[in-house]
């Protein structure tokens, strides 16, 4: 059922019946290290390239999550995958050995939100019964694609972020036990004219603000309705901008807002503003947040993965960078 401008209330809310997270070595030493299901010692994981290592992480996350859900391959309608690489190869290559129909998504770092929206609408409408949603990112593959060779001696700017190495997968089902997705808001592409590819927080904050405010208006609720409003990878500076922008639109998010990118690392100096990447929100969601929800510490969470729709071609041609964010409400009961 459509609510307001961009939101949907799900009449048959899908449940997250299983989840799995694979974290790289840096993330494992971070503040959420204890929550990850699989912690890697090396980001190469015995593969001959970092791209293959990312595929392996992605594949492992999907397979383990499916294992835990107890579903058979034939019962799963689709595997939905997404990542940051050109032509989302980490997704398609990890899905090629899984005999389940495949849907590839790209929404930069917001991909996880995008696919949760689509998956939950499909399940709620009755077309799908079971779906897996997974994203991955890898520091070394993102670095060479969006920035510089690994060994080039450059200095990161003070607004830059560190791409998260890891992958997370959620299995959504129309029946079973687990937190429910009861509403979602599909975001609009917002461009406030930021050109600096090293300042993703500033690119994504207006999109996150727009999506969150629209969501709250559409559902006619206040931020306090949620125990936690968690954005994808705004980083510390981007979070500050979000709070300021939301305040201007009449919402005070200070007490309920938190950011996956800001919390994933242990303030290691090289990570500067925190984590980023398509894997960031799915890794944090499929470990920390969902475990907190299961233990009862969090009842209702608004997950808002944010993405900077950046392309090396566009930014080299001097274009501004648009941002995107999608919101997904997760909780045990909708009232």
């Amino acid at each position: 059922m459509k609510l307001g401008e961009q939101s949907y209330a799900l009449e048959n809310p899908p449940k997250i019946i299983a989840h799995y997270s694979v974290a790289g070595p840096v993330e494992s030493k971070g503040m959420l290290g204890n929550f990850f299901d699989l912690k890697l010692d090396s980001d190469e994981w015995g593969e001959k390239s970092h791209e293959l290592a990312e595929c392996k992480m992605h594949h492992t996350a999907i397979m383990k999550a499916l294992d835990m859900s107890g579903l058979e391959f034939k019962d799963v309608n689709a595997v939905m995958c997404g990542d940051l690489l050109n032509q989302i190869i980490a997704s398609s290559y990890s899905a090629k050995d899984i005999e389940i129909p495949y849907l590839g998504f790209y929404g930069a770092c917001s991909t996880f939100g995008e696919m949760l929206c689509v998956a939950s609408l499909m399940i709620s409408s009755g077309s799908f019964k079971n779906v897996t949603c997974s994203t991955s990112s890898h520091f070394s593959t993102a670095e060479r694609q969006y920035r510089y060779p690994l060994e080039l001696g450059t200095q990161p700017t003070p607004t830059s972020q560190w791409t998260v190495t890891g992958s997370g997968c959620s299995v959504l089902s129309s029946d079973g036990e687990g937190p429910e997705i009861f509403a979602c808001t599909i975001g609009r592409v917002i461009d406030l004219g930021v050109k600096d590819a090293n300042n993703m927080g500033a690119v994504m904050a207006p999109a996150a603000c727009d999506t969150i405010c629209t969501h709250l208006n559409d559902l006619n609720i206040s931020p306090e309705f949620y125990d936690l409003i968690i954005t994808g990878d705004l980083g510390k500076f981007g979070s500050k901008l979000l709070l300021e922008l939301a305040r201007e639109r009449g919402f005070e998010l200070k007490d309920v807002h938190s950011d996956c990118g800001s919390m994933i690392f242990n303030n290691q100096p090289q990570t500067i503003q925190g984590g980023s990447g398509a894997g960031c929100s799915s890794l944090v969601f499929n470990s920390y947040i969902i475990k907190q929800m299961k233990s009862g510490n969090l009842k209702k969470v608004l997950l808002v993965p944010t993405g900077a729709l950046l392309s090396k071609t566009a930014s080299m041609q001097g274009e501004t960078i648009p941002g995107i964010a999608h919101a997904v409400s997760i909780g045990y009961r909708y009232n």
Partner: protein
Amino acid sequence: MNKKEYSEYVSKTAPKSKHLSTMFAAFWVGGLICCIGQSIFDTIQALLPLVPDDDIWAITTLVMIFLGSTLTALGVYDKIGRYAGGGSIIPITGFANSVTSPAMEYKREGIIFGLMSKMFVIAGPIIVSGIAASVAVGICYYIVSLF
């Protein structure tokens, strides 16, 4: 906020580079690299007193480029660069780093189309601008010398 107000707000509130500490790091690392170069020059000059200075500088450059490439290959130079910034970019060792690092990075796409063709993705502009500028200077010099 509209676009203009937002970009002003962002540039006003964005965290800034720590000027003093980064400048200090660039200063001492850059100075040290130059001193290493000078010591190589002095050593060669002492060993081969008959060789003209320009040739000794060429040997010094060769050794510095060797050092820069080696440190890049061992995975050390990017750590220096993270700390020192300009201090390790501007010396000739930084040029070596900007040639060796893409060569290593892109070798997975093959020797010909990866390693060899992408070797100059970063250092290319240096060669192009240097050669273009020097030819321009040469032509000007020639024209001036005609009169």
